[in-house]
């Protein structure tokens, strides 16, 4: 029901809301004062405290190679967005951006566990003190890496006064250990920026609707997958697992080889051996010579033998089914006969 409602809203929006196409800034130019589509973008990314300048390299999406030590407490000021804000054509327009930073750090106090979470502060002009808990990969030798992403949707880019990537000292806590240790250095190896400016505010609404539709569809897909799994499990006629379980259950029943008990249980052993396909070729020794009698598989495994064997088994099965049903019918008739005292109804 919710899915239909969202679809109806979507169709209504398509009809009555004009100019919905987004302009995507996924190619930020690498040079100073470069031009990208209609907007002038400054390609410099500055590390204010450490005095380095980093260029936005050319690519899709654009990324910045930092590859230098990042002092604890400093931050990257991405001025490209500030210049974008100054452009009159972007006023009163919505935007969304995501920033991903890959970070490497070193610590002497790291615990030997592989999956350890740390707390990283990631600040920007809109979201303050956004704490991320990330999975940290152990690269060995005291060096560890993690990746952190922030997604922001702005209804109006004029709300964005500045944009700062602020990485604090990661505190690393070991699994099952309450103590946490700060890292001694921090090195940002890669920053990915994906900026999208909407041509109309209504596109933000559309974006949210599309996001909700996608989430709903994902949940419905998950639900359908679960239902299909249940159906498959119910309709699955494969009983190999049950057979293996039944076999393994009885594996622990050992029969000891005693003389008297072996004689008594000989009929059961005979029936049991009938049920097994394990043919052991019997052999006999006469005047120093050993004679072996091969199993029937020598005949049936020849070309065409398997088909002939199946045909014989169909004939066997037909006769057998006839006699079984006939015998069963006679047994039922005997049960119904009150004069037959073999099985009689007890008078209560």
């Amino acid at each position, binding site marked *: 029901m919710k899915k239909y409602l969202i679809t109806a809203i979507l169709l209504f929006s398509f009809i009555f809301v004009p100019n919905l196409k987004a302009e995507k800034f996924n190619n930020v130019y690498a040079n100073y004062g470069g031009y990208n589509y209609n907007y002038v973008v400054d390609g410099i990314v500055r590390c204010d405290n450490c005095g380095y300048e980093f260029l936005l390299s050319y690519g899709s999406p654009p990324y910045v190679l930092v590859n230098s030590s990042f002092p604890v407490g400093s931050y990257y000021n991405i001025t490209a967005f500030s210049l974008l804000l100054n452009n009159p054509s972007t006023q009163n327009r919505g935007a969304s951006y995501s920033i991903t930073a890959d970070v490497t750090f070193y610590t002497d106090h790291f615990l030997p566990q592989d999956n350890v979470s740390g707390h990283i502060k990631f600040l920007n002009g809109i979201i303050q003190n956004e704490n991320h808990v990330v999975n940290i990969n152990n690269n060995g030798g005291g060096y560890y890496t993690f990746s952190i992403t922030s997604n922001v949707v702005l209804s109006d880019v004029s709300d964005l006064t500045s944009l700062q990537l602020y990485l604090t000292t990661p505190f690393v806590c070991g699994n099952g250990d309450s103590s946490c240790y700060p890292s001694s250095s921090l090195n940002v190896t890669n920053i990915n920026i994906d900026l999208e400016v909407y041509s109309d505010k209504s596109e933000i609404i559309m974006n949210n609707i599309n996001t909700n539709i996608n989430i709903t569809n994902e949940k419905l897909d998950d639900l359908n997958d679960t239902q299909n799994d249940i159906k498959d499990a119910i309709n699955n006629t494969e*009983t190999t697992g*049950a*057979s293996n379980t*039944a*076999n393994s*259950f*009885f594996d622990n*029943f*050992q*029969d*000891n*080889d*005693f*003389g*008297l*008990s*072996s*004689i*008594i*249980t*000989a009929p*059961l*052993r*005979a*029936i*049991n*051996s*009938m*049920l*097994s*396909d*394990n*043919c*052991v*070729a*019997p052999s006999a020794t006469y005047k120093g010579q050993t004679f072996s*009698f091969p*199993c*029937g*598989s020598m*005949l*049936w495994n020849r070309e065409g033998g398997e088909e*002939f*064997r199946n045909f*014989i*088994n169909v004939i*066997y*099965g037909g006769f*057998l089914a006839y006699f*079984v049903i006939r*015998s*069963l019918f006679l*047994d039922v008739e005997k049960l119904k006969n009150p004069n037959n005292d*073999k*099985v*009689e109804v*007890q008078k*209560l």
Partner: protein
Amino acid sequence: MINSILTGIFKLVIGLVNVILLPIETIISTYIPSLDDAFTMVAMLFENLVNFIPWVISWTGLNSTIIGLIVSYFTFKLTVPFIVHTVKLAISWYDKLKV
């Protein structure tokens, strides 16, 4: 599956028989070792005969499904009267106790 259940039941019964006869076997092997040897020889003969059965079946071409069907049918046919008589016996005991 049928074969597995039947095989398991037979293994269970054989194991139970071994457990029940274990004290007797121990007494015989301790005090009458020659009789125990005789039993063992007979048991070995049966063992050889039992091992001969799969060889015969392999030449007949019967597959395990058909054999399992035969064995399960006769197991069912011979077990049902036994269960009915057991139930009858239990009911008769109950009647006598009730009086």
